[in-house]
C-alpha cells in the first residue's frame, strides 16, 4: 500500500499524528477520542460524522506513510461499510440494520468511556501505604500449639513390642552358656591317663553327660578332642585312627615304650 504514496510524504510527516497513534489503545480508544472532539454528549453522538472523522484520520495517517496496525484498518473497513449502509436506503432484509450497528458502536464507546472514567476514579481513591496506614508497629502474639494427635498403624504395631525391648536390656542377665571347657578336659584326661596302660577309645574319656544340655555334651566331645591333640603335642599321648570318621584311640605314651610299633591299620 505504501507504494501508492509519494515518497515526498516523509517530509510532511506531522509529529502530532505519530504521537497520537502511540497514545491510543486500539481503534475504539481512537474513536472515543475523536468522539470527544464532537464535544457532544456521547449518547447524542453522530455515528456517521464519527465514521467520517475516523476514515479521514486513517487516510491522513496513510498519506504520511505511517504504519497502521491491522485492527485500526479493520475498524476503518467496518466504519466504511457502516457509513455506506447509513447513507444508502435499506437493501436486503437479512442484513443487519445500520441503525442497530450504529447503536452498538455507540454503546461500545459509552462503555469504554465509562471504564476509563472509572479507572481514573478508582486510582484517585485513597490508597493503603500512601494515604492511609495500618499499624506501623505490629505486635507479635504468643502462639500456643494445640496438638492434634495421630498414629500410623506401623507405630501402633511396633509399640506392642516396645515393653519387651525396653525390659530386656534393662535387666537381662546373659546366662553363662554351660560349655565343657578345654581346661576341664585336660585335667580330666591327665587324671585318667595314669591308669590307662593300653589303647583306649576317646569315648572312654568323655564325662558322663547324661541329662545334660545337648549343647554341653557336644562341647565335652569337642574339648576332649582338643585336649587330646594338646597332649599329643606335648608328647604325653599317642592317638590313632583307622580311617576317616572311625573311632579314635588314645594311649599314654610313657606306658607305651615297649610296644611303640604296635599300630593297627
Amino acid at each position, binding site marked *: 500500500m505504501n507504494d501508492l504514496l509519494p515518497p515526498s510524504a516523509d517530509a510532511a510527516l506531522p509529529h502530532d499524528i505519530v504521537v497520537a497513534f502511540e497514545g491510543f489503545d486500539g481503534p475504539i480508544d481512537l474513536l472515543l477520542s475523536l468522539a470527544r472532539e464532537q464535544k457532544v454528549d456521547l449518547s447524542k453522538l453522530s455515528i456517521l460524522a464519527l465514521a467520517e472523522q475516523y*476514515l479521514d484520520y486513517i487516510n491522513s495517517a496513510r498519506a504520511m506513510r505511517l504504519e497502521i496496525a491491522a*485492527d485500526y484498518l479493520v475498524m476503518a473497513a467496518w466504519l466504511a461499510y457502516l457509513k455506506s449502509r447509513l447513507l444508502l436506503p435499506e437493501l436486503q432484509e437479512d442484513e443487519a440494520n445500520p441503525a442497530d450497528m450504529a447503536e452498538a458502536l455507540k454503546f461500545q464507546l459509552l462503555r469504554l468511556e465509562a471504564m476509563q472514567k472509572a479507572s481514573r476514579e478508582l486510582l484517585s481513591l485513597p490508597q493503603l501505604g*500512601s494515604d*492511609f496506614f495500618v499499624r506501623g508497629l505490629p505486635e507479635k502474639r504468643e502462639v500456643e500449639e494445640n496438638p492434634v494427635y495421630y498414629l500410623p498403624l506401623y507405630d501402633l504395631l511396633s509399640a506392642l513390642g516396645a515393653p519387651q525391648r525396653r525390659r530386656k536390656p534393662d535387666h537381662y542377665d546373659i546366662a553363662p552358656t554351660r560349655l565343657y571347657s578345654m581346661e576341664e578336659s585336660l585335667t580330666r584326661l591327665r587324671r585318667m591317663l595314669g591308669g590307662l596302660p593300653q589303647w583306649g577309645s576317646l569315648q572312654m574319656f568323655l564325662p558322663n553327660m547324661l541329662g545334660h544340655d545337648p549343647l554341653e555334651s557336644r562341647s565335652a566331645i569337642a574339648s576332649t578332642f582338643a585336649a587330646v591333640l594338646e597332649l599329643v603335642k606335648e608328647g604325653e599321648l599317642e592317638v590313632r585312627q583307622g580311617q576317616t570318621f572311625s573311632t579314635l584311640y588314645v594311649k599314654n605314651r610313657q606306658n607305651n615304650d615297649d610296644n611303640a610299633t604296635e599300630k593297627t591299620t
Partner: protein
Amino acid sequence: MTEIDPALRLLEAILFASDEPMTLTVLQNQLGEAADVPTLLVALQKHYEGRGIHLVETGGVWSFRTDPALAPLMKITRQARRKLPKAASEVLAIIAYHQPVTRAEIESVRGVETSKGTLDILLELGWIRPGKRRETPGRPLTWKTTPEFLSHFNLEALKDLPGMEDLKAAGLLDARPILATMSAEGGEASDPDDAEFANWVDEEVV
C-alpha cells in the same frame, strides 16, 4: 474512665496488634462462642468515629487504619504510589466492575488485545485473581479482584466502587462483545485477516 466491656477491650487489642485485616471467624474464635462479635465490632467502629484511627471493614475483614483525610498532614515514609500504566488501570477497572470477566470480554470492552504484562502487573500487586472457568466453549478463565484490592482502596465492598450504581443502572456493565457480532454479515468472522475486510480497506480508505 468508665469501665468498658472486657470483650470489647480484647477485640480492640487484637485488631490493634495486627497490621493485617482479620476475618470475623478468626475474631470469633479468639473471643469465644459467647461473644457477639458483630455487635462489638460496630460498637468499636463507633468509638473510633472522628478519631485519627478508624476501624474499617473491607471485603468482610476488619482492620484499624489511619483516617485517609489526614494523609496530607502525615509526614511519614510512604510507599511511592505506583503509577499504573493506562492499559493496566483500564483492565483493573474492567475486572473490578465487570467481575468475573474473561480475558476476551476485557478485550471486547477495550477493543484491543491485552498484552501479557498488563495482567502480570495486577497479579503481582495482588489485586486480581483467577475465578471460575466460564462454562462456555473453550472454558475460558475468568478474573476477579482480591480482598487485598478492597483493602488497598479502603472499600467495604464492590458495590462501593466509584459510580458502581450509576454504571449498573445505565446498563454499561455488560461485557458482551458488540462489534464482533455486528462486524460481518455472517456474524462470526471478526478476524483482522479476513479477506473481505482487507478489500474494504483498499476500496474505501485509499
